[in-house]
């Protein structure tokens, strides 16, 4: 009974915070889903791109550079790294089984994390140039942090832009073709490498955006920054359904919202097992509904993006 009471009686505050976390996770899910849609690649190292961007922001903040310089630096670093990752690791491995690629991204993730540890040390740096966004708007007693609204709006905007890009433009058509059948797409004149390159570029832009949002939420940047978040978002993407961008994003939002809400509403001795329940849900979905919760019913696994 107490359990139900805590859940139902949860204040609007918890809901608002959970919504903000869901927004940020949705944004990460868009990036992971896009790369999966085009490259058939689950990128464990996505969180380390975010981490690199956060370090760029911290670097700029430490030197007292203006906010926009920091953000530009963050975007430059993340996009460069994303493209470099594609060139050095993913391109040579293209055509290998998804499992090999998964192991490779796992290795890259650890590599980048350790490089950050070597470079910046374990203690962490502060990136607080946008802390103004952490201020709440108070609406009838509920503090809604501006970042919650900004994150959700940005996630929705990015998703909309991507859906339009994929569905309405030539590049998007090529991306979907390359995702469906790399060889045939090439035979039909799609410059598949360029298409994949642009997908990687877009996912890098998204990772940089996430870095900006996450540093507002938690300004302390350590080598394992965004690691937990990435693992949760990956789970959410699988939960929602990897084959469509919309369902992947919804999955990301759902897991962010669920972990934020339950984490805030349940007492600690229950919420500490939250990851177990989330991952048990992921395994269940993989077994029972492998295409994901939000996949279209009866839909063939043809529409990949």
């Amino acid at each position, binding site marked *: 009974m107490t359990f139900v009471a805590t859940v139902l009686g949860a204040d609007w505050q918890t809901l608002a915070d959970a919504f903000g976390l869901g927004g940020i996770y949705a944004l990460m899910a868009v990036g992971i889903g896009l790369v999966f849609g085009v490259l058939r690649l*689950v990128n464990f190292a996505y969180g380390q791109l975010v981490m690199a961007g956060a370090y760029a922001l911290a670097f700029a903040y430490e030197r007292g550079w203006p906010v926009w310089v920091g953000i530009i630096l963050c975007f430059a670093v993340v996009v460069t790294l994303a493209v470099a990752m594609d060139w050095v*690791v993913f391109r*040579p*491995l293209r055509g*290998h*089984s*998804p*499992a*090999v690629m*998964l*192991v*490779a991204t*796992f*290795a*890259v993730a*650890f*590599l980048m*994390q*350790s*490089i950050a*540890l*070597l470079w910046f040390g*374990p203690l962490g740096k502060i990136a607080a140039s946008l802390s103004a966004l952490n201020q709440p708007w108070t609406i009838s007693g509920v503090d809604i942090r501006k970042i919650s609204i900004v994150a959700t709006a940005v996630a929705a905007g990015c998703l909309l832009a991507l859906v339009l890009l994929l569905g309405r433009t030539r590049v998007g058509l090529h991306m979907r073709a390359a995702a469906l059948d790399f060889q045939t797409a090439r035979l039909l004149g799609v410059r598949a490498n360029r298409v994949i390159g642009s997908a990687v570029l877009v996912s890098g832009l998204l990772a940089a955006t996430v870095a900006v949002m996450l540093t507002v939420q938690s300004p302390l940047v350590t*080598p394992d920054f965004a690691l937990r978040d990435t*693992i949760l978002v*990956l*789970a959410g993407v*699988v939960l929602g359904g990897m084959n469509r961008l919309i369902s992947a994003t919804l999955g990301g939002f759902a897991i962010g919202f669920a972990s934020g809400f339950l984490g805030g509403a349940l007492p600690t001795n229950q919420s*500490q*097992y939250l*990851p*177990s329940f989330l*991952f*048990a849900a*992921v*395994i269940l979905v*993989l*077994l029972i509904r*492998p295409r994901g919760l939000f996949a279209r019913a009866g839909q063939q696994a043809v529409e990949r993006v």
Partner: protein
Amino acid sequence: MRHAHAVLELLAPVVLVVAVALFGTLVSSSTQTYVITTLVNVSIVVALYVFIGNSGVLSFGHVSFVAVGAWTAGVLSMPVAEKPAIMPNLAAFLRDTTVGNVGSLAIAAGVGAAYALIVGLPLMRLSGLAAGIATFGVLEITHNVLRYWEKIGPGLNTFSAVPETTGLGQAAVGALIAVAVAFLYQRSRYGRMLRATREDAPAARAVGVSVYGQRLVAFTLSGALAGLAGGLYVHLLPVNAEVLYLDLTFITLAMLVIGGATSLWGAVVGAVVVSAVDSFLAEAENGVHLPGGTLDLPSGTRIVVVGTLMALVLIVRPAGLTAGREVPLPRAFLRGVLTKFSA
């Protein structure tokens, strides 16, 4: 000819393990710890190989069997007098019993097998990406539960006061057991059937092999070996839930991939080579004296080097250092020896 190959297939890893153990008797006691760790790593990687190598299905979950084995052996072998201090909320039947060293290892193997069987029953239907993510989920769940459930172990505490019985001898015997079990399994009809499913699942199915059943057999067997390795681990040094988590998963997978995932020889070579590199770097992170000066690497170098090595091997030589073959003795040499003997 076939028998000669079979003998070599077993002999080469055995010789390597024994050589590592003998090397351990020659060095200082601080270096010896690294050698013992290397041997325990061999056990873990061979356990990984039994499933991943033979089935071709990825698993991120094996470190959870190692962790469960470590928990079992650690809780059971800790002296009763020490238990309340480290594990105040332990369940009564665990609190009042203590098992000897060998017994705790055997039970660790049994619990590892049982847990792998339970996990495998639903999960062995999956393959490829789905298997990778689901087994990753298993790792997360196991880690989460072991961290917080204080009825079955120390929770966030470290397993101190566990008798440190894993010396050179036990570690070597453990590694040899793992190698022997893996060898017997891969020569058995079950091992052959599983490898048939790895090469061509529809063809294997067509001749009546149950892909699900064979994977489950291998998963359970490798769970037992992983549990045993976990028991050895907890008797080697005071571990906690964080030690048996992502880093260990990464490094053991790296060992398997670098050595060559599809052969027993590859698994053992990978474990030994990467452990050697890793131990040297770990030592160098604390500063090491070499002829020509002191080498003092910043902490974090280890994973950078191993990660780079792994990425390089994946890109340049995807089948691993041993190319995924068994013992690399040239066939021509073998043929020469055999004809000489038969003449």
